[in-house]
């Protein structure tokens, strides 16, 4: 790791992205058994952000159609389950919207079964529900999906282990540093307390930021329940020269 020095004449002036602290789960989270043989044991090497890190793929529009945001309209008929609208904004930590960025989601069906060959949960598949969707955020960072509420499902992490209902969200942002894959949960889920994935996030307030909010204003009468969930990606430091030691830590 080199120390920050003033830019030499002719040197590129690049933005930098604040490093998160105390937000993401530690990779080494033994209560989540799958991490035992997969989480690296050595501390990561601090990498000074350069061109490769402050840029990133600005893609997706060419591979997304409006129909991709409606997960209930991908089969021959209506899927079984509670129809829901998931909507919100993608922002950076400076409060700026992240426009024109690809969001990809995937989830279990209403019975808690994934349309995937290795899911052996004894619950029915739904021929009208594949469980994948995608969309681009608009100019204000907004997204909107129509889907069905996923069911909880058992897994073998510990005795009588059940995952709370969740939807997987994948986001690119505008830079390699902003890439994020996470899970959105539903409010009041009684399964939170026993879930090592949800609880891998150390700060209880940060955990709550993964939980959508039920919104009667988004709910459409006689049709679908509405949930609102904003996603916040890493933002830029105030100037390119702000020393990392002086960055805000959260």
């Amino acid at each position, binding site marked *: *790791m*080199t120390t*920050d*020095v003033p*830019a*030499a004449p002719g*040197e*590129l002036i*690049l933005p930098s992205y604040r490093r998160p602290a105390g*937000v*993401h*789960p530690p990779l080494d*989270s033994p209560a*989540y058994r*799958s991490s035992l*043989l*997969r989480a*690296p*044991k*050595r501390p*990561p*090497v601090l*990498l*000074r*952000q350069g*061109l*490769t*890190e402050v*840029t*990133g793929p*600005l*893609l997706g529009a060419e591979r997304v159609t409006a129909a991709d945001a409606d997960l209930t309209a991908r089969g021959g008929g209506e899927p079984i389950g509670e129809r829901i609208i998931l909507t919100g904004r993608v922002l950076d*930590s*400076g*409060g700026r919207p992240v426009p024109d960025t690809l969001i990809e989601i995937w989830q279990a069906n209403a019975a808690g079964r*994934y*349309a*995937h060959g*290795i899911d052996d949960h004894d619950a029915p598949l739904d021929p009208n529900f*594949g469980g994948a969707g*995608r969309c681009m955020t608009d100019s204000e960072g907004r997204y909107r999906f129509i889907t069905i509420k996923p069911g909880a499902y058992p897994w073998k992490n510990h005795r009588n282990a059940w995952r709370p209902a969740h939807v*997987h969200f994948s986001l690119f942002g505008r830079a*390699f540093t902003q*890439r994020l*894959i*996470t*899970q959105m949960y539903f409010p009041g889920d009684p399964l939170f307390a026993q879930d090592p994935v*949800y609880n*891998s*996030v150390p700060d209880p*307030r*940060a*955990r709550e*930021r*993964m939980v959508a909010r039920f919104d009667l204003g988004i709910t459409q009468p006689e049709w679908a329940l509405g949930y609102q969930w904003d*996603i*916040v*990606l890493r*933002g830029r430091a105030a100037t390119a020269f702000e020393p990392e030691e002086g960055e805000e830590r*959260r």
Partner: protein
Amino acid sequence: MSLPLTPSQTVGPFLAIGLPWPDGPFVVPEGTPGAITITGRVLDGAGEPVPDALIETWQAAPDGSFAHPDDPRGPGAAWQPGAGGFRGFGRCPTDQDGRYRIITLRPGALPGPGGGTEAPHLDVSVFARGLLDRVVTRIYLPDEHVANAADPVLAAIAPDDRRATLLAVAEPGAGPAAFRFDIRLQGGRETVFFDV
């Protein structure tokens, strides 16, 4: 204004429902002149393959440029419409043997942050069941001897045996355009991962 971040969570075992693209491994179309292939395996701490991981790569074009507003030099020829479809970004799920494959062009050298020159490299994100957040590494090419020797990121990693985990190796008997880059999540030869 300062908003607290959304935490990361694992992709879980069913990422294949939502993330792979049919053209994901093809940063350039197969058969593009000058294309290189990078294959490798993702291995866990017991040396077993990780069959439910996703690899993503991001890199400069052969002239070292990016098609991005924060590269003040502007995009080079490879990014132009009609130039052959270089995307800079690759994505490949691992198979039952933990294997992935990326077909791309050789990245160019870059002006480094704070001066100096970074050797050609690809940034790599690894997602998998068991990883609660992505891990990030870099692929350097083994035949870039001079550039690698001057690279500030490689130079800062000691000892040499850890540095070697960032270097692809020539795929034996597969010609000059085929490289192998294995990713060891854990263990004695654990890959160097970066905090970006």
